[in-house]
């Protein structure tokens, strides 16, 4: 399949790509340790760490007690003193238990200490709805953490980026929070061999278009691509920007697209109110790209409700492909 002399690109799942990144990091850097609940012989709640414990042992792949606050804090303290911990939360919802260490310690230590230290910790958060796990195991809390200066927050939407962003996070001196969408874990896609970085703070233009810009995050980037393909059939050419990093946001890529298309649709799974799309919208509205807008900005986000259990309700509270198609068509046709 690789007749050309290019680096090997195989198809891996999103979860396998993350595991490969951790495998590379563990093999190359003694300072790297994985910490989390049931990431050892169990393989992780979503089987992301898999059998890494067999390869690297329990001192490198550490099962923690069910102690999110303590565990996250240990990772912070370890990062502060020379290790490169990757801390896995079983569900991103459990970040709420560890907020003290994430928000008050990891994010602020460098600043509070006048730049004397860095906290190179990586935290992984399986996030999002669609698994029937209901209100306490389905949230998208990236905007919570994105609100905190000192943190970096990324949301890979492809296997390639899941690996590249994790490796970039490990080489980053500051705390990086990775929100992985649970429904993407099984997604297959090409993943380059070996070590590479997907740059933090850089969005990806997934599809080029001229009629409107869809700025989406995480799984919504995939849904936006599907919607854009659908729209293409009726002659509406949507540009799809996968934000990839929520903080720091790739201002230039978004603004350039909006200057070109004059229309902006933000699509994100987190609750619409005060969410990532609000920031994207404000960023555009405050910039010179405002002058290029030819319609009000439209946001599609999660409903102002907890994620419900019933599968139809669960689908209804987050944007789906037909919602994106409809909103994008209305926007492109000047109906909004």
């Amino acid at each position: 399949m690789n007749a050309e002399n290019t680096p090997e690109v195989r198809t891996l799942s999103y979860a396998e790509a993350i595991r490969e990144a951790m495998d590379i990091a563990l093999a190359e850097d003694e300072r790297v340790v994985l910490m989390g609940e049931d990431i050892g012989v169990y393989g992780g709640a979503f089987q992301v760490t898999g059998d890494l414990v067999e390869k690297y042992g329990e001192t490198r792949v550490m099962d923690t007690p069910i102690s999110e606050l303590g565990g996250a804090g240990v990772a912070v303290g370890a990062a502060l003193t020379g290790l490169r911990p990757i801390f896995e939360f079983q569900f991103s919802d459990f970040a709420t238990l560890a907020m003290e260490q994430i928000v008050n310690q990891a994010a602020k230590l460098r600043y509070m200490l006048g730049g004397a230290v860095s906290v190179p910790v990586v935290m992984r958060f399986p996030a999002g709805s669609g698994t029937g796990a209901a209100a306490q195991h389905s949230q998208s809390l990236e905007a919570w953490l994105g609100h905190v200066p000192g943190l970096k927050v990324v949301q890979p939407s492809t296997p390639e980026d899941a690996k590249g962003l994790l490796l970039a996070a490990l080489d980053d001196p500051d705390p990086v929070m990775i929100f992985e969408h649970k429904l993407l874990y099984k997604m297959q896609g090409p993943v380059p061999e070996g070590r590479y970085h997907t740059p933090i703070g850089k969005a990806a233009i997934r599809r080029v278009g001229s009629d409107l810009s869809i700025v989406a995050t995480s799984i919504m980037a995939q849904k936006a691509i599907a919607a854009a393909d659908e729209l293409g059939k009726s002659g509406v050419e949507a540009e799809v920007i996968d934000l990839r990093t929520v903080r720091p946001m790739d201002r230039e890529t978004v603004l350039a697209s909006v200057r070109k298309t004059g229309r902006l649709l933000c699509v994100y799974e987190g609750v619409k109110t005060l969410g990532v799309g609000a920031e994207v919208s404000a960023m555009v509205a405050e910039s010179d790209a405002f002058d290029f807008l030819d319609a009000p900005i439209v946001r599609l986000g999660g409903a102002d409700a907890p994620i419900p259990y019933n599968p139809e309700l669960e689908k209804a509270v987050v944007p789906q492909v037909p919602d994106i198609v409809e909103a994008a068509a209305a926007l492109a046709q000047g109906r909004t």
Partner: protein
Amino acid sequence: MPTEVIMPKVDMDMASGTIMAWHAEAGQMVDAGDPLFDIETDKAAMEVEAPASGILHHLAPEGTKIAIGEPVAWLYAEGEEVGAPPSAAPAAEEVPAAPAPKEEAAPEPAHAAAIPAAEGLRATPRARGLAREGGIDLAAVAGTGPRGRIQAGDVAALLKASAAPAQGGALSITRAKGGTGTPVILLHGFASDAASWAPLEPALRHRPLIRIDLPGHGGSPTLPIPDFAALAALIRRTFTELDLARAHLVGHSLGGALALALADTRPRNIESLTLIAPAGLGPEIDGAALTGITRATRLESLAPWLRRLVHDETIVTDGYARAVMTARADPGLRAAQAGMAEALFPDGVQAFDLRAALARLQAPTRILWGRRDRIIPWRHALEAKGAVALHLFENIGHLPQIEAPEEIGKLLAAHL
């Protein structure tokens, strides 16, 4: 200190009035006594004159209902600095007359209406930029977006249209040679054009004839028309640019409705009004025929609908139908008309109502209608009050001026 222009009390029990139309734009110099704006109350419509000379600013938007005594605009001396309105912006009670928004549009009427007209034009940032670059006054652009919002495409269309050869402003105006006295302005109907007056013209040649092509019709450019008010405003501007002290108005069907709307807001300029099978006097209209004509791309699909327009179908010969089809060959024109039909006659219903205007008419008015009209029921004519002359013709359909030009011509000539 600028001079306040208020909503005058013109009626005993009048509490508020609605601004129907401004005769001047923000930034324009007006003289004391100039007609400044039209208002409508529960009982009457009237023109209000400028209370002083000055440069007009802070206009309350057209369609805004304003309590008596409240300011509707301010007049500034030349060189006087124009800041925020000297008092609170006109407090609007409601915003009627906006095109029905889609259900998701939840406008904030009070807020929207409180914006002074000078800033109250709805336009996107990109449209504003294009207008600035193109030297276009946004007030001259009809917005096609929700709530009449001007979008980049609307400005671009106008720029394109103004780049194309068009005399006397945006709309195509043609004149017949010869004739003296008060000119006659001819307003054709939907999906027609100025050429349709040809059979009637011999009877009217003694007067100067001025034919206006509606936008998206005949020689006129395609302009976005979101609703009847926008179309009427366009005709009103075109009429203003003609700069006539007096004129007779003759309008057919949609042109009749426009003539009526024009007479309503320019009563002092209108000598007489002739409405032939006018629209605007009731909800019914044959939507299928409108759709059929605008959609037709071939002679075969057009001719049956043309025949519906008349009573004696034999007058729609193949030659006539072919000529009409040729005039309609441009897909852009057909698309523009389809869009206009959707805006003016959604779902086969007349989306505008001029019965109140009909009741207010001051100029001598005649209504001519064929009793076999299958497009608009002739009984709409019965809305007219006693001062309006009513002429009903047996065995005539929707096109009296084509079906019986001599009879109609004779009748008109007697009055014009």
